[in-house]
């Protein structure tokens, strides 16, 4: 952070450091400061056109660009993996336009941009986790009017969300949101955790790292500052329960990590492996 105008590292000529111009980055930083000051509150910002389509992480990229400095080390994950198209493209993008060092290692990174996961390795103070958010409004499926959801947030009127959980239990016998399970931040704002698995929800609570959320298409930014209370919505007699496949990772044998189911052949063969590739590799001693 605190990017000097002439960065120390080499980056692609003809582009400003980290692609966005300084005025835009300042605008985004202002929105970020406000978001950090009001945990869980959605702050509008002037999202720019980015050189990738909406839905691929334009919000996350803009937030990363705004907080990135030449001495930062960037890690990008997509569903926990460092080696998928999306993650590779975004990492290479910042490698080019900012000349920053990139890594696969959660421990080495100062900024981690993520799509739909929180790394298994515990984050520490000073790290920044940037989420790509497709839909920042947790109430959008229940209340289509933005003016009304804004009012509901202002009044802290979240009975509607509870009704949705009630309906889940009635229909499925349990709360059926395996991902994007809504959370209350700092006891005040209802927040969408972006589509992370509910398995990851508890990691947001009292996390030492700064968590920033960027929604490019919806033009919203929100944040969870370090050491902030994040509680998943539930009922007293149906407590929130993170869901994990009841298997051990086929590669590293972990019984703690979040697993992906991978189809291996046409005969119905399947294995369960860690979704966090860095965590899995580290356990295997690579």
């Amino acid at each position, binding site marked *: 952070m605190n990017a000097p105008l002439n960065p120390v590292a080499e980056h692609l000529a003809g582009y400003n450091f980290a692609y966005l111009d300084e005025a835009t980055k300042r605008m985004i930083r202002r929105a970020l400061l406000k978001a950090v000051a009001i945990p869980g509150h959605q702050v509008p910002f002037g999202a720019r056109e980015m050189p990738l389509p909406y839905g691929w992480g334009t919000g996350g990229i803009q937030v990363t660009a705004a907080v990135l400095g030449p001495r930062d080390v960037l890690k990008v994950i997509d569903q926990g993996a460092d080696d998928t198209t999306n993650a590779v493209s975004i990492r290479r993008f910042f490698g080019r336009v900012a000349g920053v060092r990139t890594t696969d290692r959660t421990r080495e990174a100062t900024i981690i941009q993520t799509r739909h996961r929180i790394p298994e390795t515990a984050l520490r103070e000073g790290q920044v986790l940037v989420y790509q958010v497709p839909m920042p409004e947790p109430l959008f499926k229940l209340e289509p009017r933005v003016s009304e959801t804004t009012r509901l947030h202002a009044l802290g009127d979240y009975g509607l969300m509870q*009704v949705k959980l009630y309906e889940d239990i009635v*229909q499925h016998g349990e709360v059926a949101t395996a991902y994007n399970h809504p959370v209350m931040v700092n006891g005040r704002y209802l927040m969408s955790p972006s589509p992370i698995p509910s398995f990851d929800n508890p990691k947001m609570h009292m996390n030492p790292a700064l968590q920033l959320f960027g929604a490019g298409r919806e033009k919203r930014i929100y944040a969870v500052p370090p050491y902030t209370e994040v509680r998943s919505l539930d009922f007293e007699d149906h407590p929130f329960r993170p869901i994990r496949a009841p298997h051990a990772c086929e590669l590293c044998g972990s019984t703690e990590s979040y697993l992906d189911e991978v189809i291996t052949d046409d005969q119905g063969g399947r294995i369960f492996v860690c979704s966090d590739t860095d965590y899995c590799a580290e356990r295997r001693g690579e």
Partner: protein
Amino acid sequence: MNPLLEARGLNLRFGAVHALEDVSLDLYPGEVVGIVGESGSGKSSLLKVLAGMQPADAGSVAYTDAQGTAHDVLRISDAARRRLMRSEWGFVHQNARDALRMNVSAGGNVGERLMAAGSRHFGKIREEAAHWLTRVEIDTARMDDLPRTFSGGMQQRLQIARTLVTRPRLVFMDEPTGGLDVSVQAKLLDLIRSLVADLGLAVLLVTHDIAAARLLSHRIVVMRHGRIVEEGLTDRVLDDPQHPYTQLLVSSVLAA
């Protein structure tokens, strides 16, 4: 005894039309007041103003809550009005579909107000919802069905259960029996009457159905062109109408 709701000098204009002209009204705890009049007489506007859903051009509405605190309904903050709406008041719409969530089960519809009021125990919410469904004579086996599979009369009863579940002190009813067939109307009126008596509710009932007003209300207010032309005890107003308009209204009721 102090009035629960006290309206003074209400005025409301829509362009050249006087929807309300110098309307004053008191409602006491446990009292059912019927507001009758023809279409366009201002009775629904009055109900909306009294419930704080529509600002008035002039006048005041004071509501005294269970703790004895007075609220200036027309100048109250949005948050405070919602709190009243959630805990102290209920609103029964003419069309149940305006009030119900059609894609949420009957139990969820009844439970919504409980959850909005802070209830977070699934079992207790269900128990309470089942209790209220029984009270409005809906089979608890239908609890997890969507309201769109209900008949019109059932939907209206569901709306009443949903409104009463938080035990409000004051209920606004806008033509609760409108759009239902006559036998269903009769049953619903019967139900409302027994619930109101059991719970000691104060009710402001807007209707153009004189028979419904006679059955339910203790007092009747007759409106015409935005003014109250006559008010008094139900039997007195309907059996011995003084104002020519009231006489016309009463004489126009078809005797079965």
